[in-house]
């Protein structure tokens, strides 16, 4: 468990944040730019010193203003992947990778050199100089360099922000592999919800230097405070499921989610794989009775739990076989269906509009 409780004032900007990041697990620090995400990771790394507060990793206190304790960054064993990679320009890729490894001999090895280069696809790059690498390659080398320093915790400060969409897709699978295979605790800074969805188990929502909400990604996807930051297009329940059947020809898979079965677009997964998916609220259709003759692949019986009316209409929370799903409908539709909490309703959404991603790491229960 990483326990953070920090305050820092720099001119106009004031940071006042406290949160716990479960370990193992991937905790996303999510918020708009200027919300204090990078400042927070710099404080955790020890590169910045807070005005007050403490940082505790496991049993070890790393920063404590009350007693004046401040373990220097070089002795924290906290890996840091910067937004701009920060590869050493005078060293080859190999030299960069070995830099931290050579200085961490005393610590227990997390992963060996050969394994890192294989996991991150760096075998062909070892002899190159950093300026000969693409942006995506640079970030992969930075990731490998941080891992080889045998960290107890990995901080990633928007590692994909400087990359274009195609390059992001090139690096994301490596981050997923890292999370699922190494189970190293990570704190991942991002302002892209897509990345949070693919990588994080937990989410700390920051705004103006304060923690607005914190919890599992699944729970917070139902939370209005996160929805306000995301905007109406990205609101939707985040569900975890397990693949039961796959149809390679159609590129679809059946998932067991809660007590029900969903059909979603998903390729390259074997039955048994755990999958994370988001069902966007605006893609969900509600019906008060079973409908027939529709192309929609998912029609699940559920119960209305709550209805939030807002300026866009209504956001309906439904319990679908133990899993929570959100549906965005207009005020007129709500009135026409006369939905009330406790009512039964059919939840319909298209397989094609629901994308899932393999997500092996289980969300640890808060202890």
């Amino acid at each position, binding site marked *: 468990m990483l326990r953070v409780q920090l305050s820092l004032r720099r001119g106009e900007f004031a940071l006042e944040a406290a949160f716990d990041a479960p370990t193992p697990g991937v905790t996303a620090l999510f918020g708009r730019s200027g919300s204090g995400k990078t400042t927070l990771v710099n404080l955790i790394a020890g590169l910045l010193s807070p005005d007050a507060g403490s940082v505790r990793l496991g049993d070890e206190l790393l920063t404590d203003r009350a007693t004046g304790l401040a373990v220097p960054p*070089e002795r924290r064993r906290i890996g840091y992947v910067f937004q*701009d990679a*920060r590869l050493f320009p005078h060293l080859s890729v190999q030299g960069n990778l070995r830099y931290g490894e050579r200085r961490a001999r005393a610590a227990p090895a997390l992963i060996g050199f050969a394994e890192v280069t294989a996991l991150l696809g760096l075998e062909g790059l070892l002899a190159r100089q950093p300026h000969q690498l693409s942006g995506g390659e640079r970030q992969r080398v930075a990731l490998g360099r941080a891992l080889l320093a045998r960290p107890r915790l990995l901080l990633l400060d928007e590692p994909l922000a400087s990359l274009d969409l195609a390059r992001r897709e090139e690096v994301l699978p490596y981050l997923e592999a890292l999370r699922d295979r190494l189970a190293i605790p990570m704190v991942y800074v991002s302002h892209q919800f897509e990345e949070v969805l693919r990588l994080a188990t937990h989410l700390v929502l920051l705004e103006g230097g304060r923690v607005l909400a914190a919890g599992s990604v699944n729970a917070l996807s139902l939370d209005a405070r996160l929805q306000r930051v995301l905007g109406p297009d990205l609101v939707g329940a985040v569900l975890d499921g397990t693949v039961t059947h796959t149809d390679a020809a159609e590129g679809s898979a059946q998932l067991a989610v809660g007590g029900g079965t969903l059909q979603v677009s998903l390729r390259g997964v074997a039955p048994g794989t755990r999958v994370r998916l988001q069902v966007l609220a605006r893609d969900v259709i509600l019906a008060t009775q079973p409908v027939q003759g529709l192309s929609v692949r998912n029609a699940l019986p559920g119960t209305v739990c709550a209805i939030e009316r807002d300026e866009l209409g209504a956001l309906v929370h439904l319990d679908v076989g133990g899993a929570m799903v959100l549906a965005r409908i207009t005020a007129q539709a709500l009135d026409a269906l006369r939905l009330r909490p406790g009512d039964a309703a059919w939840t319909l959404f298209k397989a094609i509009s629901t994308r899932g991603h393999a997500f092996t790491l289980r969300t640890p229960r808060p202890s």
Partner: protein
Amino acid sequence: MQGLLAPAELEALRLSLAVAARSVVCSLPLAVLIAWVLGRGRFPGRTLFDALVHLPLVLPPVAVGYVLLVLLGARGSLGGFLARHFGIVLPFTTAGAALATAVMTFPLMVRAMRLSLESIDQGLEDAARTLGAGALDRFCSITLPLMLPGILAGAVTAFAAGLGEFGAVITFASNVPGVTRTLPLALYTAMQSPNGDALALRLAGLSFALGLLGLLAAEYLVRRVRRRLGRS
């Protein structure tokens, strides 16, 4: 060379090279340290310290030579101490000429190094910290190698400038043939003597060629190192 230059001229050339080389080699570590202190240090009086380091650039070289003579001369406070306890005598020696040259070229060296130090992204040093490198380790493994273009440029420029140092050398180390009579001093002597015109012209040409060679070498070295670092 032997055919082109008279033994005395050859001697002056050899002395010039020796004096400049000694001055560069001895002042290099100190220059790196001062450049680092000025580039990264935050302490009261930094601006004054900066001005002091750069003072030889704007002072008359004769004044620098004179101050050295007062300090390090046989009757000077420091000079007397050095002579009594260590048997080191600097005025009127080749070592003294090198010292005077070093003081004069020191600001050039520091300036080049400091510029290259300030162009280093301090984020790289932060990255090294998170990878477990302590202060001295970071300096040796990151800062120093990245300063290399500046260190080379500073050293070669100081060497080229040191070949021609006149005022401070003649004031502090005098004009002793074979000991402190470097190229510019030999040139000055030739100009003072009757029938020395041809000799003076040859020595001036030689100084000119050496200076040009030095500057070109500095440029070439810096470019090569920069290319290796991926900065064009």
